[in-house]
């Protein structure tokens, strides 16, 4: 870790763009954290709307229920800071639109809930944008066992989480563990940008 003042950190992060693939538990919290530390631009995408059941972990509010997640998250980021540009897209990502949408990003953050989508983005970025770092969140269900979390790096792929727990009816995704992993992702993004560029 380089020692830098917050002013130096903000000044450097201001130059970068990060893509956030999904605005649920991982994406909404990761995006807000990156906005707080002064990232220049976030490209945020989601096709879903805010539901009451999301409020146990996602960075939304009761009066946003029914709103499109991408636009609601943009609203929340703009309430926190004027230094981060949030470009919001209400769409479902796929192999075709992903490279187009995130082409200008320095880093892409994977923030989906479905395993099939996590696989899709990993394969698409590895195959079509091999130089772009992809920061994923894998393994975050339930509660407790904070010591299980870590970051695994293989090439340009960074995997944050416990790598073990999969969400299910009796192993739900909840604020504390989802918050930890989403902020590990934000922390990893900072590390790559501040040390590597």
């Amino acid at each position, binding site marked *: 870790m380089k020692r830098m003042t917050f002013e130096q950190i903000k000044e450097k992060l201001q130059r970068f763009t990060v893509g956030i693939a*999904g605005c*649920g*538990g*991982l*994406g909404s919290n990761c995006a807000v954290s990156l906005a707080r530390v002064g990232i220049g631009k976030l490209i945020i995408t989601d096709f879903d709307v805010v539901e009451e059941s999301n409020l146990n972990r996602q960075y939304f509010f009761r009066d946003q229920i029914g709103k499109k997640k991408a636009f609601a998250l943009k609203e929340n980021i703009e309430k926190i800071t004027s230094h981060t540009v949030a470009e919001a897209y209400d769409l479902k990502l796929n192999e075709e639109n992903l490279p187009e949408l995130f082409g200008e990003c320095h880093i892409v953050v994977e*923030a*989906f*809930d*479905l*395993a*099939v989508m*996590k*696989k899709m983005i*990993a*394969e698409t970025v*590895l*195959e079509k944008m091999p130089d772009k770092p992809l920061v994923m*969140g*894998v*393994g*975050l*269900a339930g509660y407790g066992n904070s010591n299980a979390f870590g970051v695994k790096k*293989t*090439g340009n*792929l960074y*995997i944050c*989480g416990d*790598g*073990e*727990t*999969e*969400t*299910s009816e009796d192993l739900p*995704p909840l604020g504390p563990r*989802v918050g930890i992993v989403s902020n590990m992702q934000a922390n990893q993004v900072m590390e790559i940008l501040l040390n590597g560029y």
Partner: protein
Amino acid sequence: MMHITLNNKEEKFDCNSMTVSRLLEEKKFTFPYFVVKVNGKVVKKEEYGSTSIGEGDDVKVIHMMAGG
């Protein structure tokens, strides 16, 4: 005899090469979704049967788990 690195661990097999499909079977990778990399290059599902792994290869099988 073939030696490979699988998820950062040395593994030995009684053959000179095997397909990705065979490796996944032998190692009983049971999650429905995973990403496979051989020597840093992604191998997609439709290529599992035609991609062979040989001596010294570096193989990563990364499980994708629901949750976010």
